[in-house]
């Protein structure tokens, strides 16, 4: 198959060897699970349980709210102990509404009606069941999968692209999933194909994952509609836009969606979740998480109930002293955790406890305009120019230099010899831009209200004046009559 090259990209040391050798293990149930109501892009789910209530594994905990949302289910059987605010996996450490579940130790599944043959089901039903199972993009973007599938059925999709890129250093959860559960992943892919009424899928895997490629190829053999493709190992290959370019040669138009070029992208872990949901009716209540980093003693790939605390994972794997930095996700795009008392959510592909020698040294110095960032930017931006504008709060200038096209992939900051935190500036500017847009909406609304009030006052004044004029005219007429009389 002919592949295409996206511009730029880097080859950071993969450090996947730390955990790639350890098979997926089931994480023992912790004492308490903390299940946040927002684990997806969109509106938070609404709790549907009472404190003290007993729930079975897979039972609904919270309903989806609105069109862009996802329901949340109980990761194990047990009692609801609280519905309260708890730290979210976000650098701010701000709390969000969270259901606290105390496992009863039985891990007893709720009963689900099983379809006889899912491929006999009407395709719409697939998206419906995926929605009901609370599946979201598990590569980290956490976009509700059913919304994507629903959109895909209405559009001209020619390729279902399954993302097995896993280009972030350290992470090996997708690698292990493909090696050990290739059949389930492939089944999930076939089910998604059925759901979008289209026959062809390309499964793209970076060529540094030999075992995963082999397992997936062996399993996909015999399905003419599936093609397993080895794509070059190049960060950020796992980014949706870059993968589409590599496999199809097409570029998603700026500001547009993958569907516009006829491609639907799903992560391998999402395909696995679809398999679980359609074949067994099981909602998304657990996921595979890579626990790695220099501060972790036994680096592993654990299958973890959603809501398990990072602290539980670290204690299970053992760690030497306090880690220098704690991340959720990979080292390139992952988020810093304020502390370990933060739960695993549907999008958590890794927990990294990094030791000091693994972290970048050196403080930022002025830009020497070496252009390294321009050469490696996978989007074709000039990060140094963009940074200058972001630093000066020149948001229009930053927009002109493509702020909204930036992926925040961190490639520029990775190569910068001056150690400038370029991505940090871009994220800041994006936040400012969003705040400005919101402020503008607010101002527009206020202006509308003020204008409406003025119009109303004017109308009233006119009415008053008209009434006064009428009365005056009447009085004058009366006077005239009297005078005549």
């Amino acid at each position, binding site marked *: 198959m002919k592949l295409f090259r996206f511009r730029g990209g880097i080859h950071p040391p993969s450090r996947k060897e730390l955990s790639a050798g350890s098979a997926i293990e089931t994480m023992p149930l912790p004492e308490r699970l903390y299940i946040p109501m927002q684990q997806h892009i969109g509106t938070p789910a609404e709790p549907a349980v009472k404190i003290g209530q007993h729930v079975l594994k897979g039972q609904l905990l919270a309903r989806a709210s609105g069109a862009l949302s996802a329901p949340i289910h109980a990761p194990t059987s047990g009692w609801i102990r609280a519905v309260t605010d708890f730290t979210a996996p976000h650098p701010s450490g701000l709390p969000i509404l969270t259901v606290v579940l105390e496992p009863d130790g039985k891990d007893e599944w709720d009963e689900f009606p099983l379809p006889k043959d899912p491929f006999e089901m009407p395709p719409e039903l697939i998206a419906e069941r995926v929605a009901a199972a609370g599946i979201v993009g598990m590569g980290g973007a956490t976009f509700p999968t059913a919304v994507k599938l629903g959109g895909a059925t209405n559009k001209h999709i020619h390729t279902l692209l399954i993302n097995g890129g896993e280009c972030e250093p350290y992470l090996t959860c997708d690698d292990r999933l493909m090696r050990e559960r290739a059949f389930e992943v492939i089944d999930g892919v076939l089910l998604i194909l059925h759901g979008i009424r289209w026959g062809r899928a390309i499964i793209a895997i970076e060529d540094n994952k030999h075992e995963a490629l082999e397992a997936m190829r062996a399993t996909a053999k015999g399905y003419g509609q599936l093609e397993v493709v080895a794509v070059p190992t190049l960060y950020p290959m796992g980014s949706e836009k870059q993968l589409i370019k590599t496999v199809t040669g097409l570029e998603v138009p700026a500001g*547009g969606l993958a569907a516009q070029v006829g491609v639907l992208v799903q992560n391998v872990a999402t395909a696995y979740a679809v398999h679980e949901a359609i074949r067994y009716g099981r909602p998304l209540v657990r996921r595979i998480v890579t626990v790695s980093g220099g501060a972790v003693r036994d680096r592993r790939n654990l299958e973890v109930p959603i809501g398990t605390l990072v602290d539980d994972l670290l204690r299970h794997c053992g760690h030497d002293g306090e880690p220098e930095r704690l991340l959720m996700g990979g080292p390139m*795009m992952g988020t*810093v955790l304020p502390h370990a008392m933060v739960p695993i959510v549907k999008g958590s592909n890794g927990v990294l406890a990094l030791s000091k020698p693994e972290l970048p040294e050196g403080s930022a110095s002025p830009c*020497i305009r070496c252009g390294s960032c321009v050469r490696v930017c996978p989007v074709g931006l000039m990060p140094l*120019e963009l940074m200058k504008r972001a630093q000066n709060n020149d948001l229009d200038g930053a927009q002109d230099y493509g702020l909204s*096209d930036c992926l925040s992939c961190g490639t520029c900051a990775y190569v910068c010899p001056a*150690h400038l935190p370029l991505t940090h500036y871009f994220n800041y500017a994006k936040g400012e831009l969003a705040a400005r847009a919101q402020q503008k909406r607010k101002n527009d609304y206020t202006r509308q209200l003020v204008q409406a009030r003025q119009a109303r006052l004017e109308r009233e004044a006119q009415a008053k004046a008209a009434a006064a004029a009428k009365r005056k005219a009447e009085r004058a007429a009366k006077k005239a009559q009297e005078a005549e009389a």
Partner: protein
Amino acid sequence: MTTPISGPHYHGQRSVRGIMAQVMLALVPATVFALWQFGWPALFLFLLTLLSAVVTEALSLHLAGKAKCAFLLDGSGLLTAWLLALSLPPWAPWWIGVVGGAFAIVLGKQVFGGIGQNLFNPAMLARVALLISFPVEMTRWAAPQPFTATGAPGFVDSLKITFSGGTNLDSLTGATVLGHSKTELTRGIGLDVSLSDIYTPLDYLFGLSGGSFGETSALLLLLGGLYLLVRRIITWQIPVAMLATVALLAGIMHLVDPLRYADPLLHLLAGGLMLGAFFIATDPVTSPSGGLGQLVFGMGCGVLVYVIRTWGGFPEGLAFAVLIMNAATPLIDHYLRPRVYGRSRRGTPLTYTAEQLGREKE
């Protein structure tokens, strides 16, 4: 635990100091060879230029209230002075090096706000300032006299040459090929005659000719430049565009009138072109950062070098060419940006026809 910081939490091994060190390493062969060729006076001048740059940089940083250590140790000031020294006449008096080093650092770099802020290449700015202010000292070219040569000045004589201007300097000096051929042309003497007694390509390739201190050995400079390319400190665009443009123009003009216009090889080997193409025009701070912009920049430098050498008032135009193109760098960077993913060259979102998308369907 740490305070929240934005990613990435991963970094390549490159640093500013590392880049400067690599460039200096690439300059070592040509510099050592030049020191051998021109002896003690050249070494004195070299050290004085470097010393002057370091002292004035420390002073500037002190006045600006900046952290001295971090900036002094980044190596950029040393590199600037090094490049300036290589472009000076090897036996120039001590104050040329001192004034040049100070000028490059203070007026070329620190007044703009220090590293990364200057619009013009500081070394070339200083060189041009010196050339215009002190044309006599800046065009007195010593003939190569290696340490071992019989006529070479000893340590004490060399001190005299550097510090008191040396009395019998004129007897030791000659003209460069670019200067000589230009002067002879004004007297109506063609290149066939003027070049015959001064120019042999091999001497210029290996650096056995007179000329600026570090510009003479085209071969060693080329090797240093290739090293920088391999280590990805510089990109190919500027040097290739610059050398190719000079060679092309020289080739065309040489075909037109070989008596008046020197052949491409002479242009490539003589003067500061090799040093300029690999080490000076590629200065990241003052050259464009995009690939296309770098091509345009290199071509512009090449055209200007040839035009000044051939029709201008000075025999060598490298410094002027680089400075003029430096001024154009912000403009080039503004207009010649890379194409953005999902956008056309003009910046509008890409559109595909149904056919383009359908073809993918097979």
